[in-house]
């Protein structure tokens, strides 16, 4: 065996996050990215976020915003003097009352419970990493966060509200309430949390913890 071979560190193999092919980890020059040779997906960036704190902050803010967006009316609709304020949950209740509870359940899960649980799961895992605490069930909660990521549908709900307002303006007077602001803030927060939440880094930190 040659001397240079002995100095070289053993190659590390990492699995592609998408197609699960084994990729050889090579030291990356700055601003370079490592792509999977098979499917072309980005496996590793040299410019990775160095801290989980932005995600922690956003998830914490997001949890407060979930409450605010759900207890404040989003819009009021006014037809000939009859006014009515609306929360996100009003639609769920009304659909259930009309007997369409599967649709109501879908709206409840995708519009209220999904985002709340997603943010809570991210918050739990990231808090444990940042505070270096070994809280129970961390790998399971991380898995749950991965699954719930595609149920984080607040931005879609916000768009639907805009379309609804446009439609209702033909029929009566619609006024935005401050719940709408919280809803927009929550959309942004939920979206950015998803972007900044680095699964691999969390996994690495959790491995160190246990």
């Amino acid at each position, binding site marked *: 065996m040659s001397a240079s071979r002995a100095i070289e560190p053993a190659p590390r193999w990492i699995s592609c996050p*998408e*197609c*699960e*092919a084994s990729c050889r980890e090579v030291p990356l020059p700055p601003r370079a990215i490592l792509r999977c040779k*098979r*499917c*072309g*997906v980005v496996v590793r960036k040299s410019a990775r976020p160095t801290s989980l704190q932005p995600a922690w902050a956003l998830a914490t803010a997001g949890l407060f915003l979930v409450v605010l967006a759900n207890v404040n009316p989003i*819009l009021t*609709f006014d*037809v*000939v003097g*009859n006014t*009515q304020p*609306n*929360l996100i949950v*009003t*639609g*769920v*209740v*009304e*659909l259930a009352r*009309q007997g*369409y509870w*599967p*649709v*109501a359940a*879908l*709206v409840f899960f*995708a*519009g209220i419970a999904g985002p709340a649980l997603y943010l809570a799961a991210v918050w739990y895992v990231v808090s444990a990493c940042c505070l270096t605490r070994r809280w129970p069930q961390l790998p399971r909660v991380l898995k749950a966060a991965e*699954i719930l990521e*595609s149920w984080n*549908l607040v931005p*879609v*709900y916000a*768009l*639907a*509200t805009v*379309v*609804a307002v*446009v*439609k*209702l303006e*033909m*029929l*009566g007077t619609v006024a935005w309430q401050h719940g709408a602001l919280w809803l927009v803030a929550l959309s942004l927060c939920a979206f950015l949390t998803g972007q900044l939440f680095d699964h691999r880094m969390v996994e690495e930190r959790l491995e160190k913890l246990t």
Partner: protein
Amino acid sequence: MSPSDRPRYQLACALVAAGIILYIPANVVPVMTMTVVGQVEPLTVLGGVQELYDSGLAPMAGIVFLASIVVPFCKLAALSWLLLMQGSTAWQRQRAAVRRIVHLVGCWSMVDVFLLSVLAAVGQLGVLASVRAEPGALFFAAVLVCTLFASESYKPRMIWQTKESLPT
């Protein structure tokens, strides 16, 4: 395909088949009735788009049309293609890209369900204005749930599991 992924593949096939069948009533049966000052209007998904377009809101109509008719259709078509190509070595990179796009864009088809929810919430002013959900909403929601779970269940690694790559 690796034996452990076979149930996933079968589940995805079943969900896509169910989605294709449900797609027809979802678009034919009205999803809601809007009663405004005595005028009763049953609306299908396409009818809602038509109404937005007629009232001069073409961009809005475009968004709803894309999100609630084009996206579910393309999603079902794309997923069928992926499932039919399973095990073949052709177009693998393209199939991986198509799956990524389906996963990314898919959730926006929920717009119409949320729209119904907001309208139903507002439409409780008795005779003046009321919005009622109709059976079409159930079919539409079912299509969305089928496609969401199908794309969740079909993992990208399965594109690369071909006869050559796996020892049998």
